């Protein structure tokens, strides 16, 4: 167990270094000369040449990569091409914080809706309610955000005036409700599916029959014996879901006008600001890898039957 965690901990930096190399390499394939982009159109060839030397662009790619990684270790992701030399991290950090808040709110929505519904569907297996829940959640899951986002705004903000139509006011503001629903409800469909499957598995176990036979109340069996055990496999899915949402929130941020990572990375694409884009992808990868590691370790603590190797 300890050996496993240790091995994972040692592999994680290697994994991130390889991921960083991949992203860095893609960045160098990108069109446009960074020196030219920095200096603008009116730069003379001599000045561009000097800038290239200053940035180390004339050195071999492995050397540039080493420099990039060295910078990252010190918290320096390079400078943006577009925002005249501002450090990338300074641009990204506040945006990423906004996106994270939004995604956590969405995850809460997904869990609060998804887990009870999945449990309920499993308990009602064989009746019409089970397929009704599964299919209606699938319909919501398949609905593209290009449609759900404006629909929610039109209904709750424009028609009913319950919440502001767009913008960002922090985690505890009314504005977060609609975007969190837009991302969270399709996410709930994933939880319904897995919670239902895992509950069905637990219901078939012998200890459940024993608990009923002992004359325990339905409530106690449901919550202490079934739900608790059914929740275990859900932990793993949380990591994936959070990662999936991170991607999905790009479009939602655009439609709701939220100043998150999505907006900035989209601008980065069109302004050919590759330091910003690569930093995003790399930070996203870092968060995903660490989240999965934490979840794997948490898993062994929650469920002592599992021994990782």
């Amino acid at each position, binding site marked *: 167990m300890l050996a496993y965690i240790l091995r994972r901990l040692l592999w994680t930096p290697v994994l991130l270094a390889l*991921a960083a190399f991949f992203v860095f390499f893609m960045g160098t394939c990108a*069109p446009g000369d960074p020196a030219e982009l920095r200096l603008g159109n009116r730069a003379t060839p001599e000045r561009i040449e000097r800038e290239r030397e200053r940035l180390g662009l004339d050195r071999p790619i492995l050397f540039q990569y080493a420099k990039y990684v060295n910078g990252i270790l010190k918290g320096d992701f390079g400078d943006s091409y577009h925002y005249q030399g501002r450090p990338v991290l300074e641009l990204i950090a506040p945006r990423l914080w906004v996106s994270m808040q939004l995604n956590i709110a969405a995850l809460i929505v997904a869990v609060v809706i998804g887990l009870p519904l999945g449990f309920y569907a499993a308990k009602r297996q064989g009746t019409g309610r089970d397929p009704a829940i599964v299919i209606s959640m699938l319909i919501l899951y398949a609905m593209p955000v*290009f449609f759900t*986002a404006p629909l929610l705004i039109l209904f709750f903000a424009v028609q009913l005036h319950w919440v502001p139509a767009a913008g960002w006011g922090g985690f505890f503001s009314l504005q977060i409700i609609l975007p969190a629903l837009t991302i969270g409800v399709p996410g709930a469909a994933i939880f319904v599916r897995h919670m239902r499957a895992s509950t069905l598995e637990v219901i078939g176990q012998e200890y459940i029959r024993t608990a009923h036979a002992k004359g325990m109340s339905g409530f106690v069996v449901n919550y202490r014996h079934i739900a608790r055990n059914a929740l275990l496999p859900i932990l793993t899915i949380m990591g994936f879901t959070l*990662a999936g949402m991170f991607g999905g929130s*790009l*479009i939602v941020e655009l*439609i709701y006008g939220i100043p998150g990572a999505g907006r900035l990375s989209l601008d980065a694409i069109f302004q050919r600001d590759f330091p910003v*884009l690569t930093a995003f992808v790399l930070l996203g*990868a870092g968060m995903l890898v660490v989240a999965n590691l934490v979840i794997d370790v948490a898993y062994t603590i929650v469920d002592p039957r599992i021994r990782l190797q």
Partner: protein
Amino acid sequence: MSSVTRLDQEISELPRSRGHWRNVWARFRRRRLAFISLILITFIYLLGIFAPVIQTHDYQETNLRRTQQGPSAENWLGTDRAGRDIYTRVVWGIQTTVIITVSTFITGSLFLGVTMGLFAGYFRGWIDAVIMRIGEVVSAFPDILLIILLAATLRPVIVEFARSVEDSTGMSGLVSSGVVDYVVIGIALLPLSWFGMMRLVRGQVLVLRDAEYVQAARAMGTSTPRILFRHILPNVVSPIIVSVSFGIGAVALSEVVLSFFGLGVQPPRPSLGVMIGEVTARGGASVSVLRDHPEQLLAPIIVVWLLIFCWNIVGDALNDVLNPRSR
């Protein structure tokens, strides 16, 4: 009457056993929703395939006297801001989806994923280790971000390459035909498609490689490729089919997202993503479009919605029908 002829007679009276796939089909057909979904998918794909035949206009043809019209006899689903026929553009957009889904699955998931999975599972050792580690690095990235990065950086490189091919061979229209867009999207979607399939096949092969019939084949001196493709592969087909049917919706959606951001299919070639992106001004005008001209937004979206929903239902049903043990 001799006992032998009686036996013959009895055998011929037994119900004829049907093949495995006919059984699967019969069980699948009994699931009404899945069956309807499959018919819908086929219908939508046929619309795309026959787009040049069933179009009512040219997809590029603008008519500035008839812009932003609602549905009518002349324009079945209305017209967009440039007066182009929405119905025509939707069927051409479906064709784009069909081409991208088919080519991505054949190259990425079926060719790369399946062969790598067979090799990794059968040979194990360092081949397995290398393939798995590469996969881990690729799957460390959030899907959409990686796809966007790949599409954004690769497009100029691939367009440049296509131009040089055009120049050196004297062929023209390679870039303008849209083939380049398909290549860009196909490559950008590779990380999404191959690793899942590879891991699935590898897991199955790890079990099957020690199965008795495989050992027997090996003992008889059957060549390795023959064992892999004739003995092991047919037994992995069921999970592959299930995985493909679940994945198609995701690939179709990824193309829509890429084209929405302007990184996928390039205008004037229509795609469902391009239509959504154009009509909403990349998200900014979504609300006003939905309020004032809902058909412009809904036409491409309903197709995407149906495709994702139906493929999920079909995947579920196939999973039940093909892997009865997993129930």
